[in-house]
């Protein structure tokens, strides 16, 4: 190996080491509390290793009912968010660009105003709705849509703006597509990543939101978990561990299967670059 090759390998090697070290540190930051919680859930306050906390936690019927309620609310929130915000973003970007600053400002309001104020404000505004909405988790869905809006709208809007919207819409329309076909055939397939990200963000938000649900006295999963934690701390911790692990698995699965790039997207170019790099290294080695 020539001197150049050795130096190059050294540089690459150092980069690798640095990468793994950072990964280890950040990983530890996230894993340490998880491991500590897991340890506690197995040992309990008695200090004896057992899985009884898990057994007891899963035994209670309330776990499943509260989880189910949270899931329902989550799904509802995702559905309303994606429909409403995607539609808004399309409208702003296609027809009403002058309104963009105003719409952006509105979507950021929940970020600035305290949560409790937002909740009560929404309740007050929607007080005209019949009891079949107000006294059911539907009100929570509406609240969550608003509370998550600063984040979800930003994600969706960025996704829309990354498209050459005007041209794609015009092209699809001139080929004979109705508006429904334009959206489903030309726009949505190119919005996969944004919509998925917004959706998952929304869902995670709902599953973790405590304040509003408890204020409005709904027994969602976080509310029930908090209640559990007051009396049965080990079980609560066990459930938290499970929730975290479960969420991570879901995310990994999603990113692996659903969010991977379509066939050929960029990979050919990447392979070509890799080949060039390798050839360069090999040349160095031979020289």
């Amino acid at each position, binding site marked *: 190996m020539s001197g150049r090759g050795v130096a190059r390998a050294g540089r690459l090697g150092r980069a690798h080491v640095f990468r793994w070290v950072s990964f280890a540190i950040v990983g530890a930051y996230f894993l340490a509390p998880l491991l500590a919680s897991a340890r506690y859930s197995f040992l309990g306050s008695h200090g004896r290793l057992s899985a009884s906390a898990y057994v007891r936690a899963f035994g209670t019927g309330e776990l499943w009912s509260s989880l189910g309620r949270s899931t329902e609310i989550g799904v509802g929130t995702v559905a309303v968010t994606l429909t409403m915000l995607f539609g808004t973003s399309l409208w702003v970007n296609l027809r009403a660009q002058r309104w963009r600053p105003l719409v952006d400002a509105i979507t950021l309001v929940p970020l600035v105003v305290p949560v409790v104020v937002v909740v009560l404000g929404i309740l007050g505004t929607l007080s005209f709705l019949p009891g079949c909405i107000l006294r059911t988790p539907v009100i929570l869905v509406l609240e969550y849509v608003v509370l998550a809006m600063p984040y979800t709208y930003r994600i969706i809007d960025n996704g829309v703006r990354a498209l*050459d919207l005007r*041209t*794609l819409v*015009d*092209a*699809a*329309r*001139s*080929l*004979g*597509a*109705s508006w429904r*076909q334009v959206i489903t*055939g*030309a726009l949505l*397939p*190119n919005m996969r990543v944004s919509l998925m990200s917004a959706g998952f963000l929304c869902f995670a938000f709902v599953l973790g939101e405590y304040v509003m649900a408890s204020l409005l006295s709904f027994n969602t999963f976080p509310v029930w978990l908090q209640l559990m934690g007051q009396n049965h701390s080990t079980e609560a911790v066990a459930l938290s561990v499970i929730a975290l692990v479960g969420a991570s698995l879901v995310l990994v699965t999603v990113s692996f299967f659903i969010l991977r790039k*379509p066939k*050929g*997207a*960029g990979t*050919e170019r990447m392979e070509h670059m890799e080949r060039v790099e390798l050839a360069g290294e090999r040349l160095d080695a031979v020289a």
Partner: protein
Amino acid sequence: MPSHKVAQVNAPSASSSRSRARVELRGLGRSFGSVKALDGFDLEIGPGELVALLGPSGSGKTTVLRVLAGLEGLDKGQVLLDGVDITHMPAFRRGMGMVFQAYSLFPNMTALGNVSFGLKLRGLSRSERSKRASELLELVGLGPEAGRYPHQLSGGQQQRVALARALAIEPRVLLLDEPLSALDARVRSQLRDEIRRVQQEVGITALFVTHDQEEALSIADRVGVMRSGVLEQIGSPSEIYEHPETAFVAEFVGSVNRLPGVVVENGKVSVLGTLMPLEKSVGGRATSSAVQGASGTAGAAVVTGGAGGAGGSGSSGMTPSQWTIGTPVDVLVRAEAVSVTPKPESDHRAEVAGGNGVDGAEVVRGRVSTGTAPRARGDGASGGGCEGRITSRAFLGPVLRLGIVVNDRDGNVRGHAGGLAGAEVSGSEAEDCSASSRPVGPGHSGISGKEASPDRGLEREIVAMVPAAQSGVMVPGSQVSISFLGTPLFITSRADGPRS
């Protein structure tokens, strides 16, 4: 159920009557806020014809296309397709294929998928779609690339796919919105011919919008020149080039020289020492043709008063009949209508001085004078000429261009006039020739009043290209003569507003 839909899809090379539609646009008017994009626009496109709409940005040509496609609404006017009023028909029902400037392919589909998109909407079966899409991709020369995604294709290839996609639905009209603007020059000329070939093979009526005159002139059956929402002139490419109806058309299509002249005698204009009769025009149209006559003969000229300059705003208010002796005028003439020849003795003496070589061509500089002693303006005598320098570039071939470059004493270029390939054209200088200095009057846009002050002593330089055979004769010190072949396109009063 599928049978009638399948029947709609024909082999690409068969010219069905469906694609030979006739388009009529009547009195189109469209404003965006206070901007009038279209102002009473009329156009007819015959069956199977390719019409190019040519014009600068903001002339409204894209708006015409979008109105025809149904992507833009109309304030007033009608759109007729084969005699049927489709003004209020939504875009997705009009059955028009459109090719956009760039990035119009659906990124999530392959080339084949893109081309079949329209067919899928029409309910064709998968195998039918695939077959037809493959045929069309073959037609545009991209058969092997059917499985590639848009980001894996070059710009030229993407536009070919866009063309195939537009043709897949067997449209009645093909609309092309500057499809070549985003491509590099070499690809542009290749694809331009491809588009024309395909259009003729399929026999489809087409509207092609561009700001590139070369594109328009080379592929269209007819060319329409637009300015500010109005169609200035429409005709075959040679008609537009040789018989422009307005000075704007003359200057936008091909290069035009604006030579300064002055009215001398009654009904005569002196330009570069040549006397030309002023003839009143008939309704602003060209009354004579550009004839390759004997050099030195002055033919009839089209006279326009008022805003004769391109984008000329404001006028002195004088009409041709009011032009008195001494009125400065601009003579607009095509480069190939001016001849610079070595001539030891002539009335219009030009001295050649200096020279340098430019890329195998020779640049010869000279000075042109009209032969008679320069007179102050307003004297009323004949021969009120002016001085200028002549620069000749020799080329192999009879290409001739003429222009005026204005230099100051330090040799910096202060402005140009006329047309020289590669030179910028902005305006001409009013002439005011006196013996002591060579001042130039207030200039047009590009040269502000204070730059072109008499004190600066700006000189006019006439640039001409001559055949290589002659250039050898034109050595410093030799005399050349300038003569006009044929007639100028227009004569306009220079007191009118600046040329934009």
